[in-house]
């Protein structure tokens, strides 16, 4: 049998955790090959390694006859392999429409416009997505997202299609359609190999070849029939459990359902009456009603996003329904009603206990918040630890525990206050079959022994079958309610899954996969030049980045209003124009001379004269309050001494709390006294001793206005900060949302990716520059004296450098918040302190000068200040332009070096 991929002794570790443990397996070509097993057994790691997205740590992998340990081999494979990562629409761009998403992928593979359009038409028709090419991917249902994901994987006719849990969280009908779609595509592209990971054993029955995995090892491989035969079991699920190593399944016992003791005449435990929930224009839950008697296990089924979670949140009081009401034991549930909350235990879909607290601390906090009496608290916590077999891990942190144990802990926390009702949102999603059965045994005991009412949502049909009654929800409505047997009998010939598909088909118009679509698309023997391929991929990223940016209000706000707000506040706010200094006088002389001196001080606009001081204590008080900056004391006998040439003393008190203001006030006062002396001497006919006139001329800013110098400098600061942060977010966002997988699994190169993403931000920052420039001229009235062309050109170089810096930071940070704050902190400190914003570079120490000059800001500041205030042009600023261009280049090279094409 031909192999599409061959693994030899492949091991993979994440820190201390072993994901794959010496796996050697050959995956057959030209068929449907599947990996089965619960979450966390290494399926995803194996797929990521085969697709080349993850870096191989140990062992050897051959895919499509290439040893993929070399970058060259991976480059050859990239256009032949398609990879669809785990998670609904994880590799899609939610704000882009269906067509835009596909166009992006088409461009990544260098397809010319007509070919791309034709392929998109064909894929949309084949998947039944043709009616909504313009709907944003984020607004598609789970099933449609997965179909779109599949389309984007198939756009380049791959030889190997790798699908990581493509149907998890998708409703049964969509799931069935998805597999039919794969089957029809395989008929058309007969050579294509498909490798799928799944947690649904029912699905795996239809595959050609399976490998059952657990604990990073392959337990068994072969056709589904082989596996069942090996284990001697009737179903794959049983077979899987039997294949598990002895110690894992030691504690496994089958779940035994016991009949419920019904209590007649009592009010139902949960009663939902016409519940409706609308968010803006979207109706999440539409007129849902049901009654659940006490002690019943009520199952809730439906695809992700169909309104299950919203309904559950309304039942817990977390959300207030737009219409309708919930009654618990006959009493209406009110948001503010603390008593009814004591009756409910809730377990949300994702793990939502505190990861910073240990298992025991989490339970204790719950006991406290649920007001378990102090004397019973310790005993209750201990009882939960024992009951749920959490004793051995009582002091462990939840994050270090396997999913199955964490879910048990959540259930323990939800039942610590002995609630009458349990609301469980997909508690067993991703949990392995053995742990799942253990969890269900616990539920059975709670329901049957303690009469707790359980409201549970699930994706698993065998779990649904265990419920007393189930309801099927779709698109915000309940389609059917009844016992599993009733529903299976009514619509599914005894099969529950069949029944659900039948109910779903009633409401969903059946999609006609158009037959014309079945004509295979013939790639027109193209061999595009390398350059056009590069440009096409680069443009794919630029175009997509721009679209995403335009559709993200928060980033747009930051990009456009951020600079405006900053320039206005800093331009008006940071001012070294010291005026409106409050001034008061204590004139103990009251002579004509003293009054003239006071007049002299009151005459200039910088001083605002306040009421005269009563005494020295008055001065201390007013200066202490901060309502007085400068005080003058003229002692008794001032006029007499002055006339006699006895050099009288004048006391000046300055509020030194703000040194700059004090210094300036001192300068003004000195000038005024000098003036006073000169005029007095002239009038008295005396000669002035010092015969030198000193005149200060302020160059480049005759009016000595703060704004004239600050605005150009602040433009330097803003153009470093905002574009830097914006571009930093650009790359890290993809890491957080998971779309970085597209970069890793397609032929796009690192430089193409980075430059493509940088271009829109350079354009945006150039717009920012012009906005700031015109604000400086218009709003602040700063004169512009130099060469505008030079400033504009060098500004583009500058923002290329600052956006490059942002990308450099984001090429190695992991989260948006780390990238944002790193760029902000690293940019702000040198640009504010060492780039000439306040302290001139010439007056700094050598060390500070070097630090400043190591960032682009210190090279751009002379350009912006020079062209605004000093009338400079290209010849004066050539060097700065060259240095800024080098900065841009160095940042790009550094980013390329720091960005990994493969994940570790």
């Amino acid at each position, binding site marked *: 049998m031909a192999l599409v991929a061959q693994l030899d002794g492949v091991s993979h570790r994440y820190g201390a955790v072993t994901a794959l443990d010496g796996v050697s397996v050959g995956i057959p070509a030209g068929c449907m090959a599947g990996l089965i097993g619960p979450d966390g057994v290494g399926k995803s790691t194996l797929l990521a390694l085969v697709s080349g997205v993850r870096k191989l740590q140990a062992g050897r992998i051959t895919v499509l006859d290439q040893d993929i340990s070399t970058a060259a081999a991976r480059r050859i494979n990239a256009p032949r392999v398609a990879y669809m990562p785990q998670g609904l629409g994880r590799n899609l761009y939610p704000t882009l429409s269906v067509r835009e998403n596909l166009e992006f992928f088409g461009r990544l593979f260098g397809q010319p416009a007509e070919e791309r359009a034709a392929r998109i038409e064909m894929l949309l028709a084949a998947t039944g997505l043709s009616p909504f090419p313009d709907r944003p991917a984020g607004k598609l249902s789970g099933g449609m997202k997965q179909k779109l994901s599949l389309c984007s994987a198939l756009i380049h006719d791959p030889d190997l299609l790798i699908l990581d849990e493509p149907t998890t969280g998708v409703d049964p009908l969509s799931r069935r359609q998805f597999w039919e779609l794969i089957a029809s595509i395989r008929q058309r592209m007969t050579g294509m190999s498909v490798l799928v990971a799944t947690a649904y054993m029912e699905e795996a029955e239809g595959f050609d070849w399976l490998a059952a995995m657990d604990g990073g090892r392959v337990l068994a491989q072969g056709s589904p029939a082989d596996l069942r035969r090996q284990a001697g079991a009737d179903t794959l699920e049983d077979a899987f459990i039997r294949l598990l190593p002895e110690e894992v399944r030691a504690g496994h016992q089958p779940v035994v359902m016991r009949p419920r003791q019904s209590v007649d005449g009592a009010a139902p435990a949960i009663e939902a009456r016409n519940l409706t929930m609308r968010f803006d224009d979207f109706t999440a839950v539409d007129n849902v009603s049901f009654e659940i008697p006490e002690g019943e296990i009520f199952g809730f089924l439906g695809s992700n996003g169909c309104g299950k979670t919203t309904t559950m949140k309304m039942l817990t009081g977390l959300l207030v329904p737009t219409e309708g009401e919930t009654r618990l034991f006959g009493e209406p549930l009110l948001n503010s009603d603390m008593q009814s909350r004591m009756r409910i235990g809730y377990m949300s879909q994702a793990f*939502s206990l505190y990861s910073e607290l240990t298992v025991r601390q989490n339970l204790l906090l719950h006991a406290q918040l649920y007001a378990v009496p102090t004397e019973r608290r310790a005993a209750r916590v201990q009882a939960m630890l024992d009951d749920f077999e959490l004793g051995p891990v009582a002091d462990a942190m939840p994050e270090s525990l396997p999913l199955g144990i964490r879910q048990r802990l959540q259930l323990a926390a939800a039942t610590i206050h002995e609630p009458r009702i349990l609301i469980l949102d997909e508690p067993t999603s991703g949990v392995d079959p053995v742990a799942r059965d253990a969890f269900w045994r616990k539920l059975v005991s709670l329901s049957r022994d303690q009469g707790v009412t359980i409201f549970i949502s699930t994706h698993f049909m065998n779990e649904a079958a265990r419920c007393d009654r189930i309801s099927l929800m779709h698109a915000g409505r309940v389609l059917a309610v009844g016992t599993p047997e009733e529903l299976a009998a009514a619509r599914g010939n005894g099969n529950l899954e069949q029944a659900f598909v039948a109910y779903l088909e009633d409401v969903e118009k059946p999609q006609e996969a158009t037959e014309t679509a079945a004509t295979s698309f013939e790639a027109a023997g193209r061999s595009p030049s390398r350059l056009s391929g590069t440009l096409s991929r680069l443009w794919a990223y630029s175009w997509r980045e721009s679209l995403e940016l335009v559709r993200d209000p928060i980033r747009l706000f930051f990009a456009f209003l951020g600079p405006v707000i900053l320039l206005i506040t*800093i331009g008006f706010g940071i001012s070294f124009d010291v005026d409106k200094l409050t001034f008061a006088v204590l004139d103990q002389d009251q002579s004509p001379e003293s009054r003239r001196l006071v007049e002299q001080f009151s005459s200039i606009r910088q001083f605002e004269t306040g009421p005269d001081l009563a005494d020295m204590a008055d001065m201390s008080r007013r200066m202490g309050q901060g309502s007085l900056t400068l005080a003058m004391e003229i002692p008794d006998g001032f006029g007499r001494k002055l006339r006699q040439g006895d050099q*009288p003393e004048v006391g000046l008190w300055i509020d030194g709390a703000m040194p700059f203001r004090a210094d300036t006030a001192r300068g003004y*006062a000195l000038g005024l006294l000098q003036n006073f002396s000169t005029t007095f001497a002239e009038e008295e006919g005396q000669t002035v001793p010092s015969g*030198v006139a*000193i005149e200060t001329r302020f160059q480049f800013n005759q009016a000595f206005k703060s704004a004239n110098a600050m605005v150009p400098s602040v433009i330097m600061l803003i153009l470093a900060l905002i574009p830097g942060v914006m571009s930093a977010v650009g790359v890290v966002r993809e890491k957080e949302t998971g779309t970085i997988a597209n970069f890793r699994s397609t032929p796009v190169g690192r430089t193409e990716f980075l430059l493509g993403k940088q271009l829109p931000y350079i354009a945006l920052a150039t717009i920012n520059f012009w906005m700031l420039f015109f604000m400086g001229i218009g709003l602040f009235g700063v004169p512009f004296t130099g060469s505008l062309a030079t400033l504009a050109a060098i500004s583009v170089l500058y923002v290329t450098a600052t956006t490059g810096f942002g990308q450099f930071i984001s090429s190695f940070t992991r989260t948006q*918040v780390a990238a944002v704050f790193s760029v902000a902190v690293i940019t702000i400190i040198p640009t504010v302190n060492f780039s000439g914003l306040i302290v001139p570079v010439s007056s700094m120490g050598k060390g500070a000068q070097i630090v400043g000059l190591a960032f682009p800001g210190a090279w751009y500041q002379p350009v912006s200040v020079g062209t605004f205030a000093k009338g400079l042009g290209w010849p004066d600023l050539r060097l700065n332009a060259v240095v800024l261009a080098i900065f841009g280049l160095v940042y790009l090279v550094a980013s390329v070096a720091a960005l990994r094409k493969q994940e570790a």
Partner: protein
Amino acid sequence: MRSLANTLRLTGKELRAIRGDFVMVALIIYVFTVATYIVADAVSTEIRNLAVAVIDEDQSILSHRLTDAIQPPLFNPPVLLSPAEAEKALIKGKYVLVVALPPNLEHDLRENKSPTISILADATAVAHAGNGATYMQQLITTEISRFVSPEGTRSALVNVVFRNLFNPNLTSKWFSAVMQLMNSITIITLILSGASLIREREHGTIEHVLVMPVRPHEIVLSKILANGIVILIAATISLELVVRWLLGVPVAGSTLLFVAGTAIYIVAVASMGLLLSTFTHNMGQFGLLIIPVMIVMILLSGGMTPLESMPMWLQVLMKTVSPSPHFVSFAQSVLYRGCGLPLVAGQLVAMAGMSAVALAIALGRFRKVLSA
């Protein structure tokens, strides 16, 4: 009673969360020690080592004496340039001041012809050109009077005695150290409080708590309490250790009063951080929103340049929306001027009022945010 107990329990949980977050702890320590120290020492509007050039066209004893008089700490030793060189150098921003000593300076002075010395100041260095020129003018005047009458007979008609209250030598470090402490408090409080709410939303733990018999205000108060305690302790240590001891800044007023006022300020800023976090969905968005807010709050607090130099509308606006101007004025009054409670009560009330408003809005948005 229940409510108080719940708040305290959640506060304990918050404290554990902060302790477990090593990056945050490292950030807090860094900001309150290293950053406070470095910035307090670095950025200064003080006239210190100003780059100066001299054009000496006189080449006399007087001109040499004047040149030699230009010395550190105020000025760097001057560089001698020709007029043409000086013009170029000014354009390149190599010097903040250029002193031009005209030909025949000494001769004209002796002849009583009143020669003119020009000081060319690069006015694009707004923070230093003006005050630097004043100092230079003074220096030259003194030097010339000494030259004319070496015995030091009367030099001026009036003898001026300057006394700088609260900061006798106008050491800018005294000022910037305390202001940097305020900046640190602002930055850390905004990030920490906002992040604590967003992290819970991202992890889904907030919904989990709200299903329990816990009210939203208990959650919000516990966050303010926990973060506030941590930051207040860090700030007090920073004041005592870094500002007082390492930087040697004398503190005039009551430390207790300052700590009390700081506590109110932290509550106000934490409330704003929580409020801002209700407008965003994840930490990335929060980062984008918080950066302009932080810059505006810090730069326009009056801690960088005097509040009264701003346009009136901006002063009023800042005093209405941001607690930072009130805190700066409070801190200056208490720490430098040694004011007591009655003089700063107004600022405390203003900050408390702002935190009440921000909290009320944040609580109002709380449930709305959860459903989105």
